[in-house]
């Protein structure tokens, strides 16, 4: 009741301030009148009585102030007054205001944009109920890192583990939507029936998978994403219960996921089907391959560490009903990672580097605006001294100054949101493939809150330096504004700020420089083939149109034939996997001359099933022996090619030609030995940065099966991208029902492998450029201010005979010594800070001297220009005018 009363009253006073004042004045007047009447009644002359009454009542201003100081509304009122004053001051200095606001908008905008990208990946919990209990369970790879698990392991864990409330296995799945106007390759997942339940989501329409769907030989059912329903089926929800054609088979649509469902494990997945798999003791089956991801929801009382411990126990105590092959025996334990960490692992180093860079930029922005504020504070010392003399408390002044800087920051922050909106759009457009949760980037509640907090903090910290400086004790000196000829102590603060700025800019520039050199090095890496003029595309034979492998092989041969007649095509070939395209398919191998002691000891080698023209088309060099010819395809001895590094590893300097090898999914002894007929150059398969892997090349038609997804590589005489439509038409002239995907030039694929580094580079480069500009502005601002302050001194110097060169040197020297100091500090900082981007570097030391020298030279050059302008103005000071002005 009392609170309500306070509130109501406060509001009334606040909204009707003058009325409240008037009431008080009336009350006082009434008091004075009655007192006067009283004195008159006691016999005083009316005039004397009035004087006496006035005297008795005294100075009512103080009373009014006192009365006003009650209640919360007074604080608001003071704040409003401060705000009005601050806005007036900012309007009165448009130059200062515009520069500061723009600088702040840049800094706050950049920081906010980066936060909005980083928040969903690193901070915000995943969009599932109790997402903190979701984990990804993976096998431990040879390097200690995660490796996809096998279905057998999933099956065993599901039965034996107690740490999980539920477990789900997921496999990648692509399928082609056929029997529609244009065949389309869909990205999807095959999932165990528990998948959506484990995540904690249910379809918006229709039903979830159940155990009946997920048995071996179960029905063909799918759940679609809302995105796919909108895109291909016009959002028609009655599709649920109807059938669609996938890979020439009928699938019943049983559900559609909600529009807001975000599938973080495979963000591009649009369609889900049940796994319908069963682990068997037959280890050569698909279920024992490392291609499943296991998602788990921990029990309420469990934790990732506890689950991991339990799995180790399970591994140590094998049960006869759960046979395990060598490669899936869990003997190293398994990795149980929070799902959020797991999906962010790859992007983390890049994100941290970018966060660091944006914080450095923000610091520079703050330093720059503080610099401007300090300069202005110096001009305002007179004003502050006057107000203190008039009785303003120091706290009151500090509050006033802080209000000003916070207002400044808020205006900058408001504009910064605009910058952030542009930044987020740019980030999404530039974001490298594989960056998780891109769908969740954007300006939302948490981002606005972040921006507000950052802005307020900036406003307060920025204001503190000038506020305390400007209201320092001993201000009465400043009342004599004339004593301005000494540009003493406060110069040090500004110099320190400039030094900081230069140092910070250097750190950013070094980071950008190192990344730039890394990219250069990366692109200088030979991929092992001749990339220019190569066009590639995935040609897919999805279904049952070609029932036998021979028919399928014929289809590819015909397509190849058709493509080779397209004008501008020099040569063409088909391969089961394409370098630098995320294809990764490996199998175990065994040489007859050096039999493996343990199975899998040699690891696996990449499998390329190719048509004979592959090497010529790609430009992969032959090192020894011969390439494939038609006889290899049509029959004859089982010829196989191996890569250079595999040859070196197994045979050293010996001739590997004629060696007999078994390679493939079944190294069973019933398989005849293949014969190595040639050695070809190494090819980068995974990425330019990644080390070499052993590889086998098998002629198409001689492998166990003919892959139904293959890559067509085409060497063209002209621009490869321009050839895409005619090559596509040529393929479709053989069969128009087969989808063609991933049409891309080899050059573009190479660029894509560096996309994370390039992303980091573009951002850090942008920041570094901004930092350079701000540092230059800072140096210029300080020197320009100093020249103005020292005009008289400079006048005297030139009157005493200093040449223009002397004056020029004096000012430039001053600026450059600040720069030098900043550079020295910055170098130390950069050496420390570049630790953070080490994992992003390639072929360049983080202490790369060329980068450091280049950056220092660049910074020095820009600083020189920033020094030159004020120095030049100083040198033109006319001694006669300055001296006369005194």
């Amino acid at each position, binding site marked *: 009741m009392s609170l309500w009363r306070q509130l109501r009253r406060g509001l009334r006073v606040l909204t009707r301030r003058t009325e409240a004042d008037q*009431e008080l004045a009336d009350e006082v007047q009434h*008091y004075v009148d009655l007192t006067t009447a009283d004195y008159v009644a006691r016999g005083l002359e009316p005039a004397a009585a009035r004087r006496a009454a006035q005297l008795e009542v005294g100075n009512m201003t103080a009373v009014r102030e006192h009365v006003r100081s*009650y209640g919360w509304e007074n604080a608001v009122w003071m704040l409003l007054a401060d705000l009005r004053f601050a806005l007036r001051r900012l309007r009165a200095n448009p130059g200062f205001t515009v520069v500061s606001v723009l600088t702040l908008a840049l800094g706050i905008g950049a920081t906010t944009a980066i936060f909005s990208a980083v928040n969903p990946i690193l901070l915000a919990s995943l969009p599932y109920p109790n997402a903190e209990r979701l984990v990804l369970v993976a096998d431990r790879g040879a390097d200690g890192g995660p490796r996809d698990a096998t279905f057998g392991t999933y099956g065993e864990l599901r039965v034996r583990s107690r740490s999980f409330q539920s477990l789900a296995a997921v496999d990648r799945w692509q399928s082609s939507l056929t029997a529609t106007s244009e065949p389309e390759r869909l990205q999807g997942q095959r999932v165990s029936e528990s998948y959506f339940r484990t995540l904690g989501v249910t379809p918006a329409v229709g039903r979830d998978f159940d155990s009946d769907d997920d048995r071996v030989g179960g029905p063909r059912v799918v759940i679609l994403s809302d995105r796919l329903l909108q895109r291909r089926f016009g959002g028609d929800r009655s599709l649920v219960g109807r059938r669609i054609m996938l890979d020439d088979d009928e699938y019943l649509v049983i559900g559609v996921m909600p529009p807001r469902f975000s599938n973080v494990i495979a963000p591009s997945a649009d369609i889900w089907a049940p796994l319908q798999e069963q682990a068997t003791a037959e280890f050569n089956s698909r279920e024992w391959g490392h291609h499943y991801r296991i998602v788990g929801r921990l029990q309420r009382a469990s934790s990732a560490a506890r689950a991991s411990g339990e799995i180790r126990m399970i591994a140590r105590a094998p049960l006869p009903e759960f046979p395990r092959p060598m490669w899936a025996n869990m003997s190293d334990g398994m990795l149980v990672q929070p799902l959020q960490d797991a999906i962010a692992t790859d992007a983390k180093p890049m994100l941290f580097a970018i966060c660091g860079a944006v914080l450095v930029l923000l610091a520079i922005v703050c330093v720059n605006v503080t610099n401007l504020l300090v300069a202005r504070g110096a001009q305002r010392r007179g004003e502050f001294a006057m107000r203190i003399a008039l009785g303003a408390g120091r706290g009151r002044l500090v509050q006033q100054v802080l209000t000003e800087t916070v207002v400044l920051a808020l205006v900058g922050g408001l504009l910064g949101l605009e910058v952030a909106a542009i930044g987020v759009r740019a980030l999404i457009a530039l974001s490298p493939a594989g960056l998780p949760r891109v769908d969740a980037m954007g300006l939302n509640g948490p981002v606005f809150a972040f921006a507000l907090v950052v802005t307020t903090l900036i406003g307060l910290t920025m204001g503190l330096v000038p506020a305390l400086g400007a209201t320092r004790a001993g201000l009465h000196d400043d009342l004599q504004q004339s004593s301005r000829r000494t540009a003493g102590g406060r110069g040090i603060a500004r110099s320190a700020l400039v030094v900081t700025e230069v140092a910070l800019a250097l750190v950013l520039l070094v980071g950008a420089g190192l990344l730039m050199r890394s990219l250069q090095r990366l692109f200088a890496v030979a991929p092992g083939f001749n990339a220019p003029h190569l066009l590639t595309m995935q040609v897919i034979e999805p279904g049952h149109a070609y029932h036998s492998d021979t028919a399928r092989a014929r289809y590819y041969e015909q397509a190849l034939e058709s493509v080779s007649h397209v004008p501008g095509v020099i040569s063409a070939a088909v391969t089961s996997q394409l370098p630098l395209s995320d294809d990764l398919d490996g199998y175990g191998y065994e040489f007859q001359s050096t039999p493996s002691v343990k199975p899998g000891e040699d690891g696996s080698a990449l499998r390329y099933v190719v048509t004979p023209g592959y090497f010529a088309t790609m430009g992969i060099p032959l090192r020894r022996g011969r390439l494939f010819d038609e006889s290899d395809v049509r029959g004859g001895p089982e010829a196989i090619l191996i890569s250079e590094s595999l040859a070196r590893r197994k045979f050293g300097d010996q001739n590997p030609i004629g060696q007999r090898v078994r390679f493939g999914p079944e190294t069973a002894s019933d398989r005849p030995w293949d014969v190595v007929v040639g050695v070809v150059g190494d090819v980068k398969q995974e990425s330019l940065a990644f080390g070499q892997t052993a590889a086998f090349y098998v002629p198409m038609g001689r492998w166990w099966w003919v892959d139904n997804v293959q890559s067509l590589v085409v060497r063209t005489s002209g621009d490869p991208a321009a050839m895409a439509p005619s090559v596509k038409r040529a393929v479709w002239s053989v069969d128009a029902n087969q989808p063609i995907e991933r049409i891309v030039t080899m050059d573009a694929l190479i660029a894509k492998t560096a996309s994370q580094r390039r992303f980091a580079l573009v951002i850090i480069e942008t920041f570094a450029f901004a930092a350079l500009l701000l540092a230059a502005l800072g140096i210029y601002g300080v020197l320009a201010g100093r020249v103005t302050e020292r005009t008289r001194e400079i006048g005297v110097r030139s009157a005493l005979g200093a040449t223009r060169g002397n004056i020029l040197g004096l000012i430039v020297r001053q600026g450059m010594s600040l720069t030098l100091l900043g550079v020295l500090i910055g170098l130390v900082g950069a050496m420390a800070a570049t630790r953070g981007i080490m994992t992003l570097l390639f072929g360049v030391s983080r202490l790369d001297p060329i980068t450091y020298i280049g950056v220092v030279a660049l910074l020095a050059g820009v600083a020189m220009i920033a020094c030159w302008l004020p120095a030049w103005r100083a040198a033109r000071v006319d001694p006669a005018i300055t001296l006369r002005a005194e």
Partner: protein
Amino acid sequence: MAEQNTDVIQGTLDMLILKTLSLQPMHGFGIARRVEQISRGVFKVNPGSLLVALQRLERAGWLDSAWRQTENARRAKFYELTRSGKKQLDVETAEWARRASAVARLLKAEA
């Protein structure tokens, strides 16, 4: 005439105002006069302090105020005690009695 201290004892102004208003609603000047009269001139209320105190008490919810016509047809702000004001007066009176008797005992005590 020797200058006599007519200041209200520190901390008692609120109580005096509340007590005065417990008799009848009054405007500021009336309160000052009443305090002065009843104390026979021992206490003289400073108008500044009085107005500030009235604002404070009203804000605390112990007084209500309203503009009314006086007998000589002028507008004046009349204050009156609220229910919680009455309670407050009791509290302050009891507190004052406790302190005053303590002071009295101290003064009476023989060395």
